[in-house]
């Protein structure tokens, strides 16, 4: 859910762009990160751990912990918290069978 009408901060404007996550289309605001755009749609699970296949999401939010890795246009291990959404991006939650070498 997005925060609108903040009492102190100015409202953020921004054009809407479209991206795909795990095969579904979503809207994002121009300039926001993949992690923020997905959370705005209530999507928290960004990948599954390799051994136990447990779900993982954003943790540190500053690119340090590498928990939010996604597969972006075929590129593995892209950090959702640092990477901006661009128009028509295709993002896939990272799991063992989604890695293509």
């Amino acid at each position: 859910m997005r925060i609108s009408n903040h009492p102190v901060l100015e409202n953020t404007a921004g054009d809407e762009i479209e991206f795909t996550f795990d095969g579904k289309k979503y809207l994002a605001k121009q300039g926001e990160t993949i992690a923020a755009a997905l959370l705005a749609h209530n999507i928290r699970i960004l990948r599954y751990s390799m051994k136990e296949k447990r779900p993982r999401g954003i943790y540190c939010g500053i690119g340090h912990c590498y928990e939010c890795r996604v597969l972006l246009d075929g590129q593995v291990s892209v950090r959702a918290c640092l990477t901006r959404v661009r128009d028509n991006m295709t993002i896939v939650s990272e799991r063992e069978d989604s890695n293509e070498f």
Partner: protein
Amino acid sequence: MNFDLVIIGAGPAGMSAAIKAAENGVSVAIIDENPEVGGKLLGQLYKDSKSGWWIGQKIADELGKKLTDLNIAFFLEEQVCGIFPRWEVLLSSGERLHGKYIIIATGAAEKALPIPGWTLPGVMAIGAAQMLTNYHRVKPGEKIAIIGIDPLSLTIAYDMRLAGIHVVGIYLPKKSEFSHMKAEPKQLISYLSNFVHVLPNPFLKLFGKMLKYPVIQNLAITYYPSFGIKVFGVPLHIRKAVVEIVGENQVDAIKVEKVDKNGSANGKMEEVTVDCVCISGGLYPLGEIARVAGCEFAYLEEVGGYVPLHNENLETTQAGIFTAGNITGIEGANVAIEQGNLVGLVISDRLGLLKNSKEIIKAKKKVLLAREEAVISFQPQIEIGKEKIAELWNKRMNE
């Protein structure tokens, strides 16, 4: 590419250093792995009793505009892969930046608190929640629990309420090897009372009034109501610890237990429904890149952990490599900005570009002043820690 100065980290320290150096004619490159400059500033929001609202993003925008006006070379969305002697910075894109001088201003990261269930989606560091709330304007969750009571978590709890987010409570972490005093009410209260003079919001003000005197601290703990004290609509549970975060694929609830004055469990367990848990384990200086560059380190509890040894000009044990900001100790953005200004001037002087070297003396004084006047401080013993670093540096130089 060749520059006089290559700066790693475009937060408050790195940006101010870049501006001061460029204003004196130094050619500067600045690197950050984020898509935009600002670092931790971008998420900051708190009320300052003297100057009103501190809106970090506005400050970041102003500094960023100056960087652009001064024709500083930006390398954003780049990771530093290594620093090679004397001195070359290798970026993840393959670009290599050669600098006569380097400033490492990589800031801080958050410590985690190990609580069962902490890897579930929906559990995040308090700093991530701050960025989401104040910068991205996306709610970290619909019902949020915060674990860890400290100046940062209280400030962000306030920010969340401001943004209309439902915070169900602020709790202690479960007592463990890593939680230290964060899980012990008595010690925690005494720690928080250190911040009485710098209280930025109602949460801290509450503590300030209650906890100025040791006798009252003790009473406050003993008679602290089990439902917590509500401030701004958020219950502050200084006698309850989160012992587990539960959920199948993401957070569904937390398990909460009553604890005694020393943090040991003494009551029944209750389950509270939440969809997001924010963990505040405290900040630590982020020194990895300085390590790779071969800088020597010292561990000082007072400044928040391992920091690169440095002198009063902020130069490290590797000649030509400087440092500024939270990598030298956990403090507020104002101190980082003044440290950045100082190191920018020192490097301008080394390059023979500074007209009036008295500016350096002034800049040193400003760092001390900013530390004294800090609105939010994190390490109550920071000044002692800084003195210890100076002693260690002198000791090493006399070896």
